[in-house]
């Protein structure tokens, strides 16, 4: 049994149907990437997993059906979502952002985890009393990831962490993600346009086009694939 099992996932915004029956799985501890162009339905996929939009189809997390449950309940089951645009609490301090990340955990754990993630992300420690909105995009992305990790998730959903960041910063963000995955064993489901870096840290990948999965395989296989190379790797 996989950690996350999705089958026949449909979603729509009002009358506009976006996802047309997705099937995919994420195993415990692995990094999976969903590649797709703008408008392919990547963000919608993550949003339907975390419960922010209504869905049709079957979603099992750790064996339990979660489709149709509210985001605040899903996060308690151990699935954290770093939304597109990071979703930081801009006018709250870095420290408050992290505390909120651990909202579902007991207070003692929160202090412990905060210390841990400050260690992993020393730049956040330097800025702990600063308003999150005043930090650079890269720092905010780190904060968003750290905040999501504060709830000790078993699966981290990451929505285009590279969006709007300088290439160097993007590289660092991906390195951090890989590091986090290795150190804590948290599985990561990443949606990205930047296939190059994403495939570099992922073990498996899916390709999403117009709301359907058109290809899947190991990260290595896909990075070798001619079509993928042309479409996403710019070669």
């Amino acid at each position: 049994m996989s950690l996350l099992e999705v089958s026949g996932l449909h979603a729509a915004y009002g009358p506009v149907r976006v996802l047309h029956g997705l099937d995919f799985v994420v195993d415990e501890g692995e990094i999976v990437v969903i590649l797709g162009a703008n408008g392919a339905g990547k963000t919608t996929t993550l949003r339907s997993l975390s419960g922010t939009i209504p869905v049709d189809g079957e979603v099992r997390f750790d064996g339990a059906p979660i489709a149709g449950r509210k985001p605040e309940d899903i996060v308690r089951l151990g699935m954290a979502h770093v939304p597109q645009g990071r979703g930081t609490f801009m006018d709250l301090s870095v420290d408050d952002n992290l505390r909120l990340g651990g909202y579902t955990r007991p207070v003692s754990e929160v202090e412990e985890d905060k210390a841990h993630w400050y260690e992993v992300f020393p730049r956040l420690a330097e800025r702990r009393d600063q308003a999150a909105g005043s930090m650079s995009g890269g720092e905010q992305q780190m904060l968003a990831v750290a905040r999501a990790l504060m709830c000790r998730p078993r699966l981290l959903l990451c929505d285009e962490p590279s969006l709007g960041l300088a290439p160097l910063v993007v590289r660092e963000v991906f390195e951090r993600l890989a590091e986090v995955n290795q150190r804590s064993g948290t599985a990561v489901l990443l949606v990205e346009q930047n296939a190059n870096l994403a495939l570099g840290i992922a073990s498996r990948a899916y390709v999403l086009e117009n709301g359907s999965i058109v290809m899947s395989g190991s990260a290595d296989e896909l990075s070798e694939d001619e079509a993928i190379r042309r479409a996403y790797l710019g070669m």
Partner: protein
Amino acid sequence: MELFLQRLIDGLAVGAIYASLALGLVIIYRSSGLINFAQGEMAMFTTYLAWMLVDNGLSVWLATSAAMVFGFVLGVLVERLLIAQFSGPKESPLAIVIVTIGLFLFFNGLAPWIWGTEGKSFPNLFGTGSVDLGGVTIKVQTLGIVGVLLAEVVLFYLMFQHTKLGLSLRAVASNRESSRLVGLRVGSILAVGWGIAAMVGALSGTFVASRIDLTQNLMQVVLIYAFAAATLGGFDSPVGAVVGGIIIGVVEQMAQYVDLFDGFTLLPVFLLILVVLLVRPQGLFGRAEVSRV
């Protein structure tokens, strides 16, 4: 000089009442980004409930406490039953403005239907004594109200900055979707925010009722000044509400020096908030809008 000092102190007293109601407005604004035009009428309504208890022999303090509990329940109910209906895709601040104006009319009409149109007298929480300080009289009531206001501010500061509830209230105000994603039950938190606001309102209602007669109009004018206070201080800042309230109270008193403002007390207040908003749209203590990327 004595007159000046007296006015300063009077301004403080009046300002404390404005500030107290403004605090409630700020709490709602902070948690839901909304302005509750029914804040004053809800306070009036709970003050009537307190009056009923006093009329039945309960002590003023107990009745006031009970009114605060009523207020909390009323706030929670209003949020859950009405305001919450406008969350999600239908969300529109204007719709909610109109709903709160509807509530304003509703409570304002309901009170005289239940309790009659004649004014009621509500006893003073702090007695009628006064202290003389070198020619300047300070009423014990003034000291009491200012004291309660300070206590409110300290409590709110502690609550917002150092409790999980305060943190979640701030989080919900800052980013509702992210709040849900970290596991906050946004609906309940908003309801609690409205409850606390109405609770504070209930307290200020009893303050006002101890100074003027209790009718359905109890809070109407006070609400305008409380709005002015919150606007001046910044709708998202409790400190701003208090400072704004005091400033407006003092300005109102000092305006007596100017003939133009005799019987025209809203003018200086109006001009003041207009100027402040033009220079600093977020108010004196409000946080500027953080631009979203």
